[in-house]
């Protein structure tokens, strides 16, 4: 296969980054942190909504593929909202659920208890005080076992 190389010109971004003025990394991160902090309550509310959507009874009239997509969207929304607030355990739980939903058979037969288990775990993670590392580790470890078992066996069916 032919490989064509285009030598890159120096970008405008490269030129401006070293211009006089600007801010220090420490000060920029402090400002970013302060800017983000303002949105933390809204983020927690969005995470709560996402968890509630995952726990809500699913309409049996909806096709399985649509139900999977809706659950995947709710789980992705949790990752988006938790992302900049160091809620990495919530993101890990939501990512695991996204992996399972992504691997689920679209034609039906998905074990929906997996969604409930993940949503309940996320609810707990959201409510736990930050210092309760032991409980967080235990919850994530249990979810990891579910993920490993279901993905390795290719069995998301009940």
């Amino acid at each position, binding site marked *: 296969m032919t*490989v064509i190389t285009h030598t890159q010109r120096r970008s*405008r971004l490269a030129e401006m*980054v070293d211009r006089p003025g600007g801010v220090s990394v420490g000060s920029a*991160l402090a400002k970013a*942190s302060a800017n*983000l902090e303002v949105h933390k309550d809204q983020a927690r509310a969005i995470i709560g909504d996402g968890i509630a959507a995952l726990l809500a009874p699913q309409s049996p009239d909806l096709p399985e593929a649509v139900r999977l997509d809706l659950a995947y969207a709710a789980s992705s929304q949790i990752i988006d909202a938790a992302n*900049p607030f160091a809620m990495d355990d919530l993101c890990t739980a939501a990512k695991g659920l996204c992996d399972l939903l992504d691997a689920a058979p679209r034609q039906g037969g998905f074990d929906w208890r997996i969604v409930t288990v993940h949503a309940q775990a996320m609810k707990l993670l959201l409510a736990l005080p930050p210092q309760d590392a032991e409980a967080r580790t235990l919850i994530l470890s249990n979810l990891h076992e579910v993920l490993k078992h279901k993905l390795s066996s290719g069995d998301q069916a009940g």
Partner: protein
Amino acid sequence: MTMLGDTLRESAIFNLEGAVTMVVDDSPFSMTLTSSALSGFGIRPAFTLGSGLEAKQILQDTPIDLLIVDTAMPDIDGFELVHWLRRSAPNPNAFAPVIMTASHIKRAQLKRARDCGANFVVTKPFSAGMLLERILWIARDNRPFLEVGDYFGPDRRFRNEIWDGEERRANMKNTGRKGGSISL
């Protein structure tokens, strides 16, 4: 949130105030979060768009310095937007620095993520520190752009080390070079 990567020193100074930046994300809240972090870095996004199609229209005739785009969008997704952008020369934005963000990448999209031509695909969670680190890294990224089959984008090899093993790429076997490429 304040965890710094290896390449960021708290005392290092940078200036990105004039960077014409476009953020594309169909989630208004994610957009707000990204813009808030950027604003802390001194970057006021010139374009905040909720649609890949809208972004495509603007990118056709407005030069930008940095594009931050989400992967999952309803009309044209981030992968398709960046793939188009890289192939849009003589549009000067064809070589623009691009950071893609993703909450989760589906298995079926892994190849698209690898091949779309973004400088970085960053999966969440990432801290503001990591985002800044990626932006500063990308500003100094001088990797050449490669056209290989359907791929057009920065050289995906981050390391520039001589490979001592057997050359298995058919087109490289007769060039007498290792780890190189054919340049125009």
